[in-house]
């Protein structure tokens, strides 16, 4: 029996799913610093439980992110961390980090979309992110957010409607 080091396994998995997880964490957390902490903690927890199989469902990490975000909001960890790492907190201010990457040719369009998404309510944002970028089904979204499947679908439709409405009001 031999155990071989494969330090690239989790990195490969994280390279594939990390950006969408981070996006959801940013949406759930109150600032980018907390989002990274939450993502790290959620991923490490899930990977320690199921990582030995080499593949874990992203939905598990989404669920962990959601629960940790609630915990973070309840506890005063955010403040402690901010005090502990004041330098980083100064660097990363709330809302200053872009959620999406933008290419030069479509930069303006992407910024408008991101601004529109940020104007959505938190409930609509989370459903939209899990559906569009998380690539989860409504059933998985329901499990992640602990809401009924139809509620998830309904929120998604409303989110798109609101988003369209916001975009139509924006100057072109």
């Amino acid at each position, binding site marked *: 029996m031999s*155990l071989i080091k*494969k330090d690239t396994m989790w*990195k490969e998995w994280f390279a594939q799913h990390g950006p*969408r997880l981070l996006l959801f964490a940013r949406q759930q957390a109150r600032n980018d610093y907390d989002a990274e902490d939450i993502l*790290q903690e959620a991923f*490490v927890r899930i990977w320690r439980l199921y990582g030995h199989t080499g593949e874990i469902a992203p939905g598990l990490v989404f669920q962990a992110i959601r629960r940790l975000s609630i915990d973070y909001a309840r506890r005063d960890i955010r403040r402690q961390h901010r005090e502990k790492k004041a330098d980083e907190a100064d660097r990363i201010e709330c809302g200053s980090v872009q959620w999406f990457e933008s290419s030069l040719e479509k930069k303006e*369009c992407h910024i408008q979309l991101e601004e529109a998404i940020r104007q959505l309510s938190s409930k609509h944002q989370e459903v939209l992110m899990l559906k569009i970028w998380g690539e989860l089904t409504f059933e998985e979204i329901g499990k992640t957010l602990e809401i009924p499947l139809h509620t998830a679908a309904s929120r998604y439709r409303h989110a798109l409607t609101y988003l369209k409405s916001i975009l139509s009001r924006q100057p072109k």
Partner: protein
Amino acid sequence: MKDLHSDLEKELMGLSPSRTGTGFEQRISDALGLQGELLVQDINIEEKVIPLGIVRNWIIAASLIFLLGFIGVSIYFQKFMSQTLANSPIAHAQPDNVKNIALTPDSLPMVKNAIGPWQPRDREAILVEVRNEGIVREPELPPAQQFRYRYYDTSTFTDTADNSRMRVTVPREQVFQVKLEPY
């Protein structure tokens, strides 16, 4: 509804979420430690798992060895016990009991009738020794424990004519064999 938002959905899908910072992977790597670097998939399953057929054959072989051993021990034990029992009697003969048997009047080989003027008056057999001579084995006979009895047979005669007496003492040996039945 889907058609109404399909363009918007496509537009949203065109957005790529921002990647994590360069130091973020290192943070996770530190948090995971060694556990993050080991996978069950890396274990050679073929080496780890013993095929069922081999396990079954080993169990059958072990059972046969155990059964043969048990039978062998049983046979040896039975033989050993039989030999031990054959060397020892079921019960040792009690000299007192044998003495009683020996002293029954009918068994005394003494003179009962008158010899000339001498009339038998009294007779007795005195047991002077009982010797346990151990187990004897005769060909084609079961083993037996042998006892040797030594007597002095004394007969007293009286001549009624002159009222004289004569005492005759004869040594006698009697051998008893108690048959042994090993169980």
